[in-house]
C-alpha cells in the first residue's frame, strides 16, 4: 500500500531544512508504528518520497510525502497515529491512497504557489519591479552554494508574481495569515507561482534578490515566505 500524506510544515518549524524534515517525519512515522517498507541493500532506508524540498525559512501548507507500507492500514488509523506523533506545528491535512504504477511524486509536481510577506517596501514599487521582471526575457542570477556557484535563469520558472491588495484578504489557511498584516503600511503581501520542471525549480527568495536590477533593493531574508499550494500534473 502506498499513501500520500498532505501536511503542513507550520510557521514555527519554518527554519527546518529539507533533510531535517525528512528525519523528523521518518522518526514520527516510526513512533506512530506505521509498517513502513524498507529499501533493499546494504543500509536499508524507509521507502519514502518527499516530493519537492522546501528550503530553510519557508513554511508549507500543502506539503506532501509518499510512503510505501508493507501492509494496508485504514486511512483514519494512519491519520490518528501520525497526528499523535507529529511535533508541534506539523499538521496532517489529508492522507490519500496512491494508485500503483504512477510516476514519482517529485516528477508529477508542476508548480508551487507561494505567499510572500515583505516588510519595508512600497506595494507600488514591488508591483513595478514584478512587472519589469515578468517583462524580461531572461533574468540570470548567480546562486552560490558551499560547493559550487552556478547561474540560473529565473525568468522561465516564474509563472506569476503579483502584489496582493493591502487588506490582507487573501485566500489562505488561518494558521499562516500574518498577525498584523494590513496594519503596517510598509508591509506588502504578494503571491508567486513558480514552475517545476522534472524536479527542477527555483526559490522565490532568488526572485526577490534579483529585483535590484529593476530598482528595488530589499533583504530577501526578511521576507516571510510560505508555500500555499503544490500543483500536481492532472491525469
Amino acid at each position, binding site marked *: 500500500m502506498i499513501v500520500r500524506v498532505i501536511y503542513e510544515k507550520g510557521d*514555527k*518549524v519554518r527554519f527546518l531544512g529539507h533533510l531535517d524534515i525528512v528525519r523528523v517525519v521518518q522518526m514520527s512515522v516510526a*513512533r506512530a508504528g506505521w509498517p513502513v517498507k524498507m529499501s533493499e541493500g*546494504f543500509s536499508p532506508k524507509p521507502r519514502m518520497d518527499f516530493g519537492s524540498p522546501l528550503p*530553510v525559512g519557508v513554511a508549507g501548507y500543502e506539503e506532501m510525502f509518499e510512503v510505501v507500507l508493507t501492509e494496508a492500514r485504514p486511512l483514519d488509523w494512519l491519520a490518528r497515529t501520525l497526528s499523535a506523533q507529529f*511535533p508541534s506545528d506539523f499538521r496532517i491535512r489529508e492522507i490519500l491512497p496512491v494508485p500503483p504504477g504512477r510516476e514519482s511524486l517529485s516528477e508529477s509536481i508542476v508548480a508551487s504557489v507561494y505567499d510572500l510577506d515583505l516588510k519595508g517596501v512600497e506595494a507600488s514599487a514591488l508591483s513595478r519591479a514584478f512587472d519589469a521582471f515578468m517583462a524580461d526575457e531572461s533574468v540570470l542570477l548567480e546562486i552560490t552554494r558551499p560547493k559550487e556557484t552556478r547561474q540560473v535563469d529565473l525568468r522561465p520558472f516564474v509563472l506569476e508574481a503579483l502584489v496582493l491588495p493591502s487588506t490582507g484578504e487573501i485566500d489562505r489557511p488561518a494558521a499562516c495569515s500574518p498577525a498584523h498584516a494590513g496594519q503596517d503600511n510598509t508591509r506588502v503581501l504578494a503571491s508567486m507561482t513558480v514552475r517545476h520542471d522534472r524536479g527542477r525549480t527555483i526559490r522565490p527568495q532568488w526572485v526577490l534578490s534579483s529585483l535590484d536590477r529593476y530598482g528595488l533593493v530589499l533583504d530577501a531574508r526578511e521576507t*516571510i515566505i510560505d508555500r500555499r499550494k503544490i500543483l500536481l500534473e492532472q491525469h
Partner: protein
Amino acid sequence: MLRVNREEITWEDLRRELGKVEKPARYTGGEINAIRKDPEKADVRFALAFPDVYEVGASHLGSQILYYVINSMDRVACERTYAPWKDMEELLRRKNWPLYTLESRAPLYAFDIVGFSLQYELTYTNVLAMLELGGIPLRSKDRDESHPLVIAGGPVALSAEPLADFIDAFALGDGEEVVGDIISVYKDWRVSGKPRSFLLRELSQIPGVYVPSLYEVFYNPDNTVSRISPRNLDGFSAPERVHRRVLKSLESAPYPTKPLIPLIPPIHDRAVVEIFRGCTQGCRFCQAGMIYRPVREREPETIEKMALEILERSGFNEVSLVSLSSADYTYIKDLVSNLLKNPCGAKVSLPSLRVDSFSVGLAEMLGGGTKSGLTLAPEAGSQRMRDIINKRVTEEDILAAAESAFSAGYSHIKLYFMIGLPGETDEDVVAIGKLAQEIRRLGRNMGKRPSIVVSVSGFVPKAHTPFQWEPCLRPEEIMRRQRLLGSVLRGPGLEYRYHDVRLTRLEAVFSRGDRRLASALELAFKKGRRFDAWTDDYKQEEWDAVFEESGVDVDFYAHRERSENEVFPWDHLSSGVRKSYLLRERRLAMQEAKTPDCRGADCTGCGVCPDLGVKVDLAGRRDGQ
C-alpha cells in the same frame, strides 16, 4: 547591560531575523518531548545553560537527565538555552535582544536559577558571553537579590577555579543527587526575604555544593597557592573541604525514557542508555576515571526495558549503551544479544570499547550492516608507556584485537594515541608508528587492504589525576614529536591526524588554573573570544595578547612540573580519591608498575568508598555480596 522592556521575545520579532543566521532552528525550540511548564505556575524557574553550540548540547546526556529531573519537581519549571553561534550573538546584540530560553523565549535574567553544564575548559569564554547576553552581571559580587543565582556543574566543576569569580555556586558530583537540595534551599531563602549573602551561606551547607566566594586563597611568593581557607564571616564559615556528591545506586536513579529529540540532528543522533557510571580501569591520565568512582551498574533487565521504551518513544533506529568503558559491563554479551532482538529493528552501538579481542568480538556482534570502521584506543605505542599510564593492555592484546577486527571484515581501523605523556622518550613516540605499521602488516598478511588512521592528541595533565603534578609539553616540543611520528607513519593505507598544539596549551592553562585567571578570561571574552575548542576559529594572537595584558605566565600554569607538596587550587574540592593515592599512583607510574581494576580484584585504596560512604555496585550482585 542588555534589557528589553518585555518578558519575552516574540515569534514575530524572531521570524524575520532568524533567516540571517546559520541553522536558525538552533534557536527556535519546539523539540519532541520538550517540556513546557506554565511559568505562572512555577515557584522556581530554572534555566539549564549549555556553553556550547546547540547540536552539542541538545543530545548531552547529563543535561537531558537534569532537564527531566528538575521538571519532575512540583512547581519548578526547567528550560534550556545554548551558546549562540557568533552570527546569532551578533544578531542579539544588534537587536538588543537578550539571550533567551527555547521553551518560553524568556530572557536568562528572568530566571531564578541559571545552571551551566561544564564539560570542557575551552567553553569558559562562552559561559561569560551567555551571562552577559542573558542580562546577568558577569561577576558574582555584582549580583544582587534581583539577579538569578548562577550555578555550574559537570566534571569540570571540580577544578573550575578560573570561573570562581563568575559562578555563585558549583555543584560537585552527580547532579541529579544535589540539584533538588539547591532548589529547595533557594525556595526557602526567597520566602525568607533575606539578603543574597544569606543564600550563598545556606547553599554552602549542602554537601557537594561549593561557594567559591566564601573561600579565600593565599599565595606564596613563588605564585603557588599556600592555603585555601573558608572566610570567617561573623562566626560563620563554609566547610574546609567540599566533597563530591555521589549517587549510591544508578539502578534506582531517575532517567528520562522520553528523551528530548531535537528537530535538527544533534551530534549524537541516537537513543542512549547509561549502563553504568564510573570506571576503575585506573588509567592515570584520565580524569573521568578518577572523578566518577565507584562503578555503579544498572541491572540488565532495567537497561533492556529502558532501551525499548526509549526506542519506541523516539523513533531512533539505533541505541547506544554508554559508559566510560562499556565492554566492562558485567553482562555485556547477554545484554547486547538480547537487545539486538528488539522489535524496532534498531542497531545497537557501544562507544569506548577496550583494546582486546573480547571487545572486537562485541563489535562484531553489533554488526549493523556496514562494517565501516572500528576505533581502538591503545593511548600509547610502547609497552613501557602503557605501563606508565596504567593502560593494562599488551601489544599481543592490541594485535589480537586488530586480527579479530580484520577477520570480522573490518578494514578501516582508527587508533587513538597521546603524545607528551610523562616519561615519554623519542623511542616511545616512534613506537606509535611501529604499532600502526605492525597492524597494517597484519591486515595485509590476512589478504586485506587495511586503512589505518592514527589520531594523536597532545597530553594535557588534569586536576584530580595521578598526573596532576606533571608539566604539559611546550607546543614546540609537541610539534617536534608530531613530526618525528609523522616521519615513521608514511606509506599507503596510513593516515596521520594530530591535534592543534595551541589548543593543547590553552586547555593546559585552564584545566589546572586558579582564580587569578578570571581577569584573563574576562579580557578574552571582551576581545571576542568564543568557542575556543573550535579549531577553525582559534586565534593564537588574541590569546597571546590576553595573557600578555593580564600578566598571566603561561609557563607557570601549563609547562611547570609541580612539587609533591604543592597546594593545588582545587585541593579543597574532593572527588573522594585521596591526594595520597594519586601521589602513590604517580610514583608507581614512574616505576612502570600497574594497578589492577578494583571492579573484580581487591580494593586499591583510592579512598572513594570509605570517605564518601559508597561502594562498587555491580549488576546481579546486590544481594548478599
